[in-house]
């Protein structure tokens, strides 16, 4: 779960990292008042979850309160990567001598956490790494012990000698953050170094592992979504389902990420357009009923493909779920069911009662839904 910059900065501050003097505002007038209070130039940043704010021209500078008002008006109501801007972080403009990069994340290849530092901050670190590999230092370390003195020293060896002490201090602090917040990634880019050698986090990135949120329940709240979307997602999360809407017209209901990806591939390769990716936990009659309710809300659907491969669950139980939904509620689109596995005959017989002829072969079922999706045009 990714935090907003201002949320991450509050946490950074409690961990002893310096951040610019700033305030979160929701109106241009508030921004003007804060700029008056600062009495100098300010930077205004929309609080959204995309990392590409700078590239989108959405980080604005203002030299006086009136300009702060105008820039805030411009930013508020903007939409960045489908997220409407409703909050801005207004901060005093910090005197910058140098801009550095520092992060801690997980190296999925070596199965170890890795600390990364570079004196070339403020840019895309991937690009820096490709163009100047010598300017990016990566140090992998033990999760149980944390980086040793020597490892911290190695990390900050990428900086000038006079900067190493302060950078070591920053690195130790973000390591604490990484552990305390079960982070997938903590990143400061850029970290400003003032002429006096003081380090200030100009940006703050903190991504908390979703599977650890039970240890950080205070952080769970809507981000970048309407209340309805958030509740919908929390609901799915409680059921341990993953649901991603796509812009096609073929709904897909099948449990398991792997098989669902395989079905998306089959449909797309044969010229159909999938409407969603849904990864459910193991299905039972109630689950399949709930999943049908999920699809009933999608008006763009032309057909629904249900794939049942019963290993640990039972075809007849799942067929009962489908029957119950279709007799209690209305679904205006055709439903194609592919069903194999445990108690397959019993399941097929139940579906016959509601005039659904289950298909044995996945490929045939895929052909059928593609035809139906095109014929319904």
């Amino acid at each position, binding site marked *: 779960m990714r935090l907003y910059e201002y949320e991450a900065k509050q946490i950074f501050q409690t961990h002893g990292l310096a951040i610019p003097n700033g305030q979160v505002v929701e109106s241009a007038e508030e921004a003007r008042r804060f700029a008056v209070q600062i009495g100098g130039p300010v930077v205004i940043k929309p609080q959204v979850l995309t990392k590409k704010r700078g590239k989108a021209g959405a980080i604005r500078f203002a030299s006086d309160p009136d300009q702060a008002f105008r820039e805030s008006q411009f930013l508020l109501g903007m939409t960045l990567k489908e997220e409407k801007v409703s909050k801005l972080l207004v901060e005093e403009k910090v005197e910058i001598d140098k801009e550095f990069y520092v992060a801690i994340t997980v190296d999925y290849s070596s199965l170890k956490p890795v600390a990364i530092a570079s004196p070339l901050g403020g840019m895309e670190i991937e690009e820096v790494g490709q163009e100047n590999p010598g300017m990016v230092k990566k140090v992998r370390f033990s*999760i149980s012990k944390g980086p040793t003195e020597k490892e911290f020293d190695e990390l900050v060896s990428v900086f000038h000698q006079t900067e190493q002490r302060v950078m070591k201090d920053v690195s130790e602090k973000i390591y604490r953050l990484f552990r305390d917040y079960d982070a997938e990634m903590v990143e400061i880019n850029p970290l400003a170094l003032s002429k006096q050698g003081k380090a200030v986090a100009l940006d703050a990135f903190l991504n908390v592992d979703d599977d650890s949120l039970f240890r950080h329940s205070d952080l769970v709240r809507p981000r970048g979504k309407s209340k309805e979307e958030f509740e919908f997602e929390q609901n799915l999360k409680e059921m341990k389902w993953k649901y991603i809407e796509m812009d096609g017209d073929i709904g897909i209901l099948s449990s398991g990420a*792997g098989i669902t990806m395989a079905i998306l591939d089959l449909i797309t390769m044969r010229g159909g357009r999938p409407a969603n*990716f849904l990864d459910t936990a193991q299905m039972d009659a109630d689950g399949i009923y709930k999943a049908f309710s999920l699809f009933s809300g999608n008006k763009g659907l032309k057909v629904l493909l249900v794939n049942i491969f019963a290993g640990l669950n039972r075809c007849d139980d799942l067929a009962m779920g489908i029957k119950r939904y279709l007799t209690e509620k209305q679904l205006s689109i055709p439903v194609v069911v592919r069903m194999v596995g445990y108690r397959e005959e019993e399941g097929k017989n139940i579906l016959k009662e509601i005039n659904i002829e289950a298909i044995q072969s996945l490929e045939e079922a895929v052909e059928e839904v593609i035809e139906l999706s095109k014929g319904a045009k």
Partner: protein
Amino acid sequence: MSIIAKSSTKVLIQGITGNAARLHTKNMLDYGTKIVAGVRPGGGGEDVHGVPVYDSVVQATSKHPINTTILFVPPKGVKAAAFEALNAGIKTIVMVAEHVPLHDNLGILEEAEKRGALVIGPNTPGLISPPEKTKLGFVPSQYFMPGPIGVASRSGTLTYEIVSRLTLNGIGQTTCIGVGGDPIVGTPFPKILQFFEKDSETKVVLLIGEIGGTREEEAAEMIRDRKITKPVFVYLVGRTAPEGKRVGHAGALIEGSRGTIESKLACFSEAEVPVAETPADVIRIAKEILKR
């Protein structure tokens, strides 16, 4: 022969009194798995389908020869359970739970490596060796039969779909292993390939991979560099999937452009590894290789 799950494997079930654990203990026993003990703190003295239950792993290991444990505990309890098993000297741990916290998982894998122990999972249905009549976990055994193919997969449900077709076509398996769906797992493809390479009964290896991570690429490099000499073929899914949430910045930083479908296909092509596009392709390629 098979890998990891063998008829000589002596199994402990941690968290044996839970509903799912009871059901799958029964299924595993019926299939032939030698389950010798279970653990449930406070549950010592009970039995589950005839399997004696102990309060702690050490109590169980002092009474029975145990070399493998399966953790049927909720994600929050996985780290403590895994450390208890490692501290008791158990060398193979199967972690079926999904949603194990990332840092817990890293800690378990670090400790296991230090102790020379093998971790399967997390987020895996486990593994099954039809020739040995042994399964560790909850794969539905009716779709499997003994034969020459070793299968390793990142997805449980897709494994059942594919392996059931192999079985229908008379192509049996030495061992089928779910390596786990998480980005961090104890026995990723490169490690499993080494196991299959050493197993005399395995003639062909099928990897069922997907987008994200770089394990497919690493496996391809091992094959290209002739570290694996047995024929390997691959079924890759996610060609058309929306970008997964784990495939993001952090991974991109460390792996460069690896992890995409294009990168995986290019690596397998360079290693001259056949790649199936559909389930039907898998069967066709398997038959071709076995005919040679």
